[in-house]
């Protein structure tokens, strides 16, 4: 037995490997990104033969895992909650067909949101698709649920979803674990076109089958005493009870313990759908009022459906957006205790500290591109070259081009391109040639850029597309891309250069530039503008290629250029507002801009931008 501290995502990986998961696919996205690397770590340290891949997107990942599962193997697929939207098409269909080996889909939610475009609740996606869903409260429980989901999936021949929220994914907990074994199961796909290629007539039958499975699973969920349970005393009535699942369950447990109020009964729903009706009926029956604590939406409230009895989001007692932090839960419950004339909490009165901190006027810390980030140089040049353009952008570090005024829209993966063509046609219809510049990262382009680009070319849209190729998936923690041809486990795959893909999409203008050279990139922007405007031109694609300053520290800055600022600085603040390098700051005492040498990456790009020539190369190395 080893004792080790695992990240929640590591605990999930451990649970999957303990369950003999043989195939694991994923596309990275916060907060799910560490699950697959943790699987690889275990595969290597324990000498397992699990097949692991970074797939090009979430739908691709799910389809790959599904095929393995219906050939009898145990498979898993993980992604962030909005990634499940991309995989929704497969999801809806896969659950009708069912599975043979276990298939576990892990979709990580982001209440807050901390690092996502929505706070959507994966449990609702599960309900929509009619897939059973488990909602862990802690890393330890997530690990346990991974094994349970795999077993139940195989038993009932239906995919399972586990929905860990960010506070499970990025929690750390000490876990005891033992040697891991390979699963000897061999692939053997049994042809059955009525199921695996079902036409609508058969789909109707499959739907009936699915509904029967769900009924049986709901029954079983009432018996899963580890994850669905309550602490009611036989025959007793309660003025108030609490139903909670996932992360809020852990918070309410601590609060009730801290406040010594464990006589308030608690129903834990670690498996909320299909609803374990026997359990919830018992609980609702015994309590006059029930507070429902769940993230992020109202699944349990909807499934219970008793609006008279329930305190929750629908009644306005629980906030409808944002995380249910322990303090938020504490305040909600305390208010309800007062409302019901029950004894309120003893812990802390209002000390006024929140207001005190608010009044300090603390600086809001916007995330920014790193010092030396090649995207900063790209955005600076793009904006300078086409100041009047609409700037469509995409999901990744480069979303932060917002700060440089070079990002106007961020919708979803791949929308830089689809929205660029949309804007072009909307203006074109009025006879206006609105310049549009789209920016998208290399990994995002591989994920969902091509369909949009094919469409734009086919329908003769005109815009400049700048692919910000930093040779990595940076935002989510430095995963390799198909462009560099390194696979998830570090082995060599076939590299598929961007140029080849873009050419295949029908683009004639494809040019590469190093964005650190702002002059060269500026010149290329001019050339691209001409191509876009010319009658026999088209979409112009610029590949701004330079390695990420964090992933490729040494290579990213091949020549270290120490910089300093002279008294020629007129405080025009161009470098602070339009370039926004975190290493440049306004120095009160000097009355001018200055360089924070601790942060400076010595990329030397700022030398090219100061209109007064006040940023200079300094002598000291």
């Amino acid at each position, binding site marked *: 037995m080893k004792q*080790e*501290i695992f990240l929640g995502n590591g605990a999930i990986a451990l649970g999957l490997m303990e369950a003999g998961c043989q195939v694991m696919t994923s596309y990275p996205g*916060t907060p799910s990104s560490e699950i697959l690397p943790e699987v690889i770590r275990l595969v290597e340290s324990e000498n397992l033969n699990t097949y692991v891949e970074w797939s090009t997107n979430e739908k691709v990942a799910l389809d790959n895992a599904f095929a393995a599962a219906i050939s009898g193997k145990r498979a898993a697929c993980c992604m962030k909650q909005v990634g499940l939207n991309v995989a929704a098409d497969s999801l809806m269909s896969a659950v009708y067909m069912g599975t043979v080996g276990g298939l576990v889909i892990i979709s990580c939610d982001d209440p807050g949101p901390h690092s996502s475009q929505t706070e959507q609740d994966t449990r609702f996606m599960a309900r929509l698709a009619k897939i059973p869903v488990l909602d862990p409260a802690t890393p330890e429980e997530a690990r346990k649920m991974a094994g349970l989901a795999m077993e139940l999936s195989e038993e009932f021949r239906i995919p399972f979803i586990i929905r860990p929220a960010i506070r499970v994914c990025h929690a750390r907990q*000490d876990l005891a674990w033992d040697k891991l074994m390979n699963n000897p199961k061999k692939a053997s796909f049994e042809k059955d076109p009525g199921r695996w290629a079902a036409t609508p007539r058969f789909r109707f039958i499959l739907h009936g089958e699915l509904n029967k499975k769900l009924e049986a699973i709901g029954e079983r969920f009432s018996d899963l005493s580890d994850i669905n349970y309550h602490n009611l005393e036989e025959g007793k009535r309660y003025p108030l009870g609490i139903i909670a699942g996932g992360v809020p369950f852990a918070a309410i447990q*601590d609060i009730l313990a801290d406040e010594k109020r464990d006589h308030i009964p608690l129903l834990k729903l670690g498996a909320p759908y299909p609803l374990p009706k026997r359990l919830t009926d018992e609980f609702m029956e015994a309590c006059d009022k029930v507070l429902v604590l769940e993230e992020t939406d109202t699944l349990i409230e909807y499934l219970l459906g008793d609006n008279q009895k329930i305190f929750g989001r629908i009644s306005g007692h629980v906030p409808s957006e944002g995380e249910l932090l322990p303090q938020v839960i504490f305040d909600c419950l305390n208010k309800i205790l007062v409302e019901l004339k029950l004894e309120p909490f003893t812990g802390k009165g209002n000390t006024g500290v929140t207001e005190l901190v608010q009044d300090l006027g*603390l600086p809001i*810390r916007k995330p920014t591109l790193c010092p030396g980030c090649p995207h900063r140089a790209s955005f600076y040049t793009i904006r300078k070259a086409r100041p009047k353009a609409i700037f469509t952008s995409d999901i990744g570090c480069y979303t932060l081009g917002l700060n440089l005024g070079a990002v106007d829209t961020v919708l979803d993966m791949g929308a830089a391109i689809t929205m660029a063509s949309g804007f072009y046609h909307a203006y074109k219809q009025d006879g206006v040639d609105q310049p549009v510049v789209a920016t998208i990262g290399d990994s995002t382009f591989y994920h969902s850029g091509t369909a949009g680009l094919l469409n734009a070319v086919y329908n003769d849209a005109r815009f400049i597309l700048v692919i910000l190729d930093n040779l990595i998936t940076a*935002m989510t923690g430095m995963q390799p891309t198909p462009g560099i041809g390194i696979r998830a486990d570090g082995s060599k795959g076939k590299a598929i250069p961007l140029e080849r893909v873009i050419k295949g999409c029908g683009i004639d203008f494809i040019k590469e530039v190093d964005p650190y050279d702002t002059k060269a990139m500026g010149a290329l922007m001019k050339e691209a503008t001409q191509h876009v405007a010319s009658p026999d031109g088209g979409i112009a694609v610029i590949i701004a290629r330079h390695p990420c300053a964090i992933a490729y520290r040494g290579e990213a800055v091949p020549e270290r250029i120490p910089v300093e600022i002279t008294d020629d600085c007129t405080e025009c603040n161009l470098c602070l507002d339009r370039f926004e390098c975190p290493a440049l700051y306004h120095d009160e005492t000097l009355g001018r801009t200055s360089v924070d040498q601790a942060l400076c990456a010595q990329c030397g790009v700022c030398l090219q931008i100061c209109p007064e020539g006040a940023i200079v190369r300094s002598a000291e190395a």
Partner: protein
Amino acid sequence: MENVSMIFCGLGGQGILFMTKIFARAALDKGLPTLGAETHGMAQRGGSVVSHLKLGPAASSLVREQTANFLLALEENEAYRNLPFLAPGATLYVNAETDVFPRKEVSPYMEKQGITYHAFPAQKTAMALKNPMSTNLALMGFFAAYENEPFTHDELRETIISVSPERFRENNLKVFDAGFEFQQ
């Protein structure tokens, strides 16, 4: 030992995750149950970053307001921002010049709550040793100079030795020791 709750805060890129990891590992080595929460993703690019750590039995990885025993802040403003986490009688360690911390608006509150604070120019100390990225280690050393609970100086130092990658080990210890020896 009673349960101990800690908050680590600062700006993305300052090494908050590493600091949390050291404390969590030290707890593991002592056989204490550990549960913590971290910030990953977008905020790591220079935004406000907070880590929570609970030592001893707990269900939730998040520390509730006014229940933390320690706050270690790698940046002054982030220390203020996270003040609501501190329990009455808690202790705060901050990377800041001694003569500027705390701002006069917050002193009465800290006094009333019995919050002790220790300010120390951790970044300067790390810079002087040509390790600008090791502000976190300087602050940990400084912490170790005052506290024997939940970890002694030796326990923390041992953990840094075992957790640091070989090529950083010597430098990490140098900065940790400088923090420990500061003004002693």
